[in-house]
């Protein structure tokens, strides 16, 4: 009775049962893949490549993060650039006034208000804060870098003391008119100049650190992204504005006043040049940040394509598979029902 054609009744019914359960589990996978367009179980499908997949995803999200933080960095740089440009413009206006006022009668009176306003403006600009940190403070971002120049402030006290030590009277004294151009020249070159150089500048004027903020703008590039208030351009402007606002200029003799103005002209034009250089270097960093951001976006797209390619299932292929499986299951169920009817018992 044993022959190649023999089949047991148990197998006749259970072979279809196996195929139904197998197809049903395949159907649940296929329908998930058809709806999501991704493997139902990417880890199982990718095996060894899963590490590459998670690695690419990690890199991708780090790039996203850098693109985000680059916006903050760019904002900081924009603000910095904006302030430097403003200070440059103010300085140029002031330079015109200086040249005009040098030989004019009452030049002192013309220059005094704008010099003292510009000094306040400079201090205000350098003390600007962005997103909770002082932009020009170098690394010491939690402290306003420049002290105010008002009666009693360290910077004013130091200038007053130097003046008194050199000439023997205060700026407000009537004796100011007796200062000769040579004496003034000497004062400006020595003790007054020293006020705007280290270490006096750092003690009396600025608490900013020389080191500036550094930021990572791409996966590998770390660049300086702030400007310290200790830059020479700012010091020169501070010196020029101070000498024209607080050296008793209104009472100086015309010749002595001209000495002061000449010195201020050289300082301000030096400062304009320095600020232009500074603005240029900030601009270069801005350029690098935006280039890095663009590059990151492109890289992100490339990585994204790779990730998608690894995990992707053609949705139309998957839905074809769903249909085919449905048909198979239908057929298997129909056959099961019919096979039940085919039995000799029904004919006895």
């Amino acid at each position, binding site marked *: 009775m044993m022959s190649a054609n023999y089949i047991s009744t*148990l197998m006749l019914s259970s072979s279809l049962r196996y195929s139904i359960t197998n197809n049903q589990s395949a159907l649940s996978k296929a329908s998930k893949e058809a709806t999501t367009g991704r493997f139902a179980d990417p*880890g199982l499908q990718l095996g060894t490549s899963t*590490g590459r997949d*998670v690695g690419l995803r990690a890199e991708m999200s780090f790039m996203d993060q850098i693109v*985000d933080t680059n916006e903050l960095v760019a904002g900081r740089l924009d603000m910095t650039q904006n302030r430097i440009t403003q200070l440059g413009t103010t300085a140029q206006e002031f330079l015109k006034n200086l040249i005009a006022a040098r030989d004019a009668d009452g030049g002192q009176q013309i220059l005094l208000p704008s010099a003292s306003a510009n000094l306040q403006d400079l201090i205000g600009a350098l003390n600007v804060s962005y997103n909770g940190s002082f932009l020009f403070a170098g690394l010491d971002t939690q402290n306003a870098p420049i002290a105010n120049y008002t009666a009693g402030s360290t910077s004013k006290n130091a200038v007053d003391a130097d003046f008194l030590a050199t000439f023997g009277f205060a700026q407000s004294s009537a004796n100011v008119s007796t200062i000769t151009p040579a004496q003034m020249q000497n004062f400006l070159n020595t003790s007054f100049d020293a006020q705007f150089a280290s270490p006096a500048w750092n003690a009396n004027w600025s608490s900013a*650190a020389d080191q500036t903020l550094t930021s990572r703008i791409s996966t590998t590039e770390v660049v300086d992204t702030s400007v310290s208030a200790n830059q020479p351009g700012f010091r020169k402007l501070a010196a020029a504005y101070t000498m024209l606002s607080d050296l008793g200029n209104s009472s100086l003799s015309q010749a002595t006043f001209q000495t002061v103005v000449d010195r201020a002209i050289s300082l301000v034009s030096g400062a304009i040049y320095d600020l232009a250089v500074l603005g240029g270097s900030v601009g270069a960093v801005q350029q690098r940040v935006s280039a890095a951001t663009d590059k990151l976006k492109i890289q992100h797209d490339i990585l994204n394509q790779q990730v998608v390619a690894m995990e992707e299932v053609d949705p139309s292929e998957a839905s074809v598979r769903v249909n085919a499986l449905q048909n198979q299951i239908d057929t298997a169920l129909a056959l099961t029902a019919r096979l039940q009817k085919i039995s000799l018992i029904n004919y006895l």
Partner: protein
Amino acid sequence: MSLTAALGSARSSLMAAGIQSSVISRNIAGASELSYSRKIAVLENFPGNGVYVAAIQRAASAGLYTNVLTATSASTKQSVIYDGLQKIAAATVDDPELDQSPTAQLNVLKQALHQYATAPDNATLAQSAVAAAKDMAASLNQATTTVQSVREGADADMLTAVTNINRLLAQFDTVNTAVVKGTTTGEDVTDYLDQRDAIISKLSQEIGVSVSIRPNGDAALYTDSGVVLYDKSARNVSFAPTNAYTAGITGNAVYIDGVPVTGASSVMPLKSGKIAGLAELRDTATVTYQSQLDEIARGLIDAFREIDQSGAALPDVPGLFTYPGAPAMPAAATISVGLAGTITVAASVDPASGGNPNLLRDGAISGNVAYNYNTTGVAGFSARLQQLIDNMDAPQPFDAAAQGKPSGSVIDFASSSVSWIESRRKTADDSAQYQNTLLDRSNTALSNVNGVNMDDEMSLMLQVERTYSASSKIISAVDDMLNTLLAAVS
């Protein structure tokens, strides 16, 4: 007297038909049972005196049956390994899209550091960087718990399997004795043989088994590695369970008659069956994965270590990530067993424990000012944070025994660990599927040899019925004839 002979033949035919129909009804009763093999009543001629049932045979195929046993053992082993790895992979990797893997967690930490480095004066970002570090440590701790609980589960399953084997061997003993006795006395032992085969089939799920049959019907059982399981009497299979697992604990071996059949000390290790799968899962796969987690933890501690800044040449100390062995650094490029379970974020940085998250930026997390990187104490200091990010990307050596990338960044190593577990899972799944298909095929082939076809049995039944009525008819015809004869005589 030939009328009496006709009566005798008819009578023997009735007897044979009775036995045949009883065999048919046994076959029909067993039709839906996989372990049932079809019985055949063998008819032989009594010369001149009809037929008799000489024996009841079983339709069986030893070759196909061995195939089924092998496929069952192999498929059980692979399914067990797959299930264990699946649990671990689901808890530690999951869908790559969900960013649950150690790689993704490390990257989250790197991102938090980067964000903090962009605005080092921002206390909120400092806190979120520390929070990311705590998540990282917690996920390593959790992964360790998962891996160890899988080992516990495997150990418990081994105990169940061993209990099961001992029970089955005891049953086997009873049935085998009945077979031997029946074979010697010439009884019908086919049902016992079926029962014995069913027991061996169940055994083959737990342990790879091979059978050898002796002429008197006695069967001896060996494991697939050649250790005697049953020969005249059942051997004792023993196993001492370990209830709680931590990394570094080695589970006990399974012994058969005092011979270890799993574990490193085994000279005849089991090759297939549930016990072999569980042993591989408990003693090899999970241990390797645990050592990968430990290496990730060690790589992290290493990447965040603090170096003496005072010039006093003090030794390096653990920084943000620390462990019970601090202030000593864990040995480089060597697996520190169980480190992933004990790694924590230093309390001095953790705001929840009263720490200062800014130490992440400044250094000296270990408490010694010699390790302070930010000597001027300025708020915009980001060099240390940048250094930490670079350290996370910097290649470092890993213990080759962990089977991950031997040299690479800690993130690369974590990716290679993801690859390792997923490829193991894929392999186990592939071979489980293959073995299942093989098992299906072998079962089908075997069942088509020894299974019951109802239609066939029914048509046989018709045949027997016809024979029965014809024989009865003969008896009544002979009776009539005898009656006629007797009436004539009287």
